[in-house]
């Protein structure tokens, strides 16, 4: 029983958890959400640009997108965050006078997620039936307008579930920015938990952090499943047999 008691004390020390809660709500949670949402938005913009470059008829654009994607997807996130944070941080400090690594953290997360989102968008756009482009062009639209008005919107729609999954990954990866040494007011869920655990010598604050992450990610996971199912089945509406309606075409031959 000693071991069980010890485990319970280590992970489920309610007092230690209670102490960290106010800071989690006031500092950790908002920062995690800001990091994930802002880099999600910037990453989506980068991803859209990469996807359009990736399917472009210009070979140079395709190559640039390819190389960017291969590198950013091929590196461990922790390495990218460190290199961008510590490598470019001093330059930004010089230019702006700001010592906060926060913008660098967002930049690193955006650049990484951009590479993944670019691949998601590209596969979505390329999965649109080529008859769509052909029909749009046959109406007299240019290649660019056809892509913008018909092909790309369909491609995006169909990768929405993958996009939400990527956002879930971003919420989790945002925990890695603790390595850049954020100011006290900039700390996110993981680091708040980590600080409290270090101070109290008890791991319960980590468990608190875990609960916060799960509260964000589990609903999103189910949201993905929901839109996935909705897109597979379509909105219910009744089909009806053809014939009946045509007011023209009484001169049927054939």
């Amino acid at each position: 029983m000693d071991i069980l008691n010890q485990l319970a004390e280590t992970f489920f020390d309610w007092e230690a958890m209670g102490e960290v809660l106010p800071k989690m709500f006031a500092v950790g949670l908002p920062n995690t959400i800001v990091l994930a949402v802002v880099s999600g938005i910037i990453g989506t913009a980068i991803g859209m640009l990469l996807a359009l470059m990736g399917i472009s008829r210009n070979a140079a654009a395709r190559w640039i997108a390819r190389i960017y994607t291969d590198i950013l997807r091929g590196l461990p996130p922790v390495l990218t965050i460190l290199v961008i944070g510590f490598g470019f941080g001093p330059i930004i400090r010089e230019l702006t006078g700001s010592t906060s690594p926060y913008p660098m953290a967002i930049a690193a997360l955006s650049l990484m997620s951009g590479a993944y989102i670019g691949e998601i968008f590209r596969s979505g756009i390329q999965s649109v039936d080529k008859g769509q482009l052909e029909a749009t062009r046959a109406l007299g639209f240019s290649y660019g307008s056809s892509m913008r008005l018909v092909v790309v919107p369909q491609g995006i729609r169909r990768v929405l579930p993958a996009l939400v999954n990527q956002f879930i990954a971003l919420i989790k990866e945002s925990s890695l920015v603790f390595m850049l040494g954020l100011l006290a007011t900039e700390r996110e869920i993981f680091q708040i938990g980590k600080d409290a655990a270090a101070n109290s010598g008890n791991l319960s604050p980590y468990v608190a952090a875990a609960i916060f992450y799960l509260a964000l990610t589990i609903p999103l996971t189910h949201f993905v499943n929901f839109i996935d199912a909705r897109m597979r089945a379509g909105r219910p509406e009744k089909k009806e047999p053809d014939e009946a309606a045509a007011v023209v075409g009484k001169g049927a031959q054939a």
Partner: protein
Amino acid sequence: MSEFASGSLTAKNIHLSFGSNHVLRGIDLHVEKGTTASVIGPSGSGKSTLLRVMNRLIEPDQGDILLDGRSVLKDNPDELRRRIGMVFQQFNLFPHKTVAENISLALRKLRGMSKEQAREEALAQLDLVGLKHKADSRPANLSGGQQQRVAIARALAMKPEVMFFDEATSALDPELVKGVLALMADLAQGGMTMVVVTHEMGFSRNVSDVVTFMDAGVVVESGPPEQLFTNPQTARLQGFLSDVL
């Protein structure tokens, strides 16, 4: 007394290769204003490709295309395609837009109509094909025959001078074919200039003014339907007709 501002269409000595594959080998085709030409032939004979070359979805390697007697190869291809409507085997409606939006999109963006104007015109076109009541449905909720009629309305809304039909009934269930063919026959009777690539021999025989038989990238025989169907001159056409009739 044509309901349409249609024009004649001529293809002269069209050649096209994909790599080493010589798909079209000197095709000549002439469609008089207000008449219907049907193009028949076995799969892979180049019929569908010919349509795509004539509206420059694919640029020919050699040859000329004339609309109303004037060469269009130097025109802007996007503007050329606004003058030629096209209907596809797979309908190719835009699944993310309503039926009415499928039609109004080009009217708004290419013809510069206001949203209200374009919708009104879309509804008028839908009325002509008997589907006004489906204006706000999504294409996926329509039957194949209804979808193809919407596709025809979408093409007609642009007031084309010529209409292309690329095996427009091949993807339809048998019981839905008749309605679409009837609509096409009405267009032909209304004086639209049409090029119809089809496997429907009955339609080809009864509705078209000229039938062209293609095989392996060349025009093998061409003439009035009575002549081709009752008195085929070449062994290839005789063989084809005995296979499909």
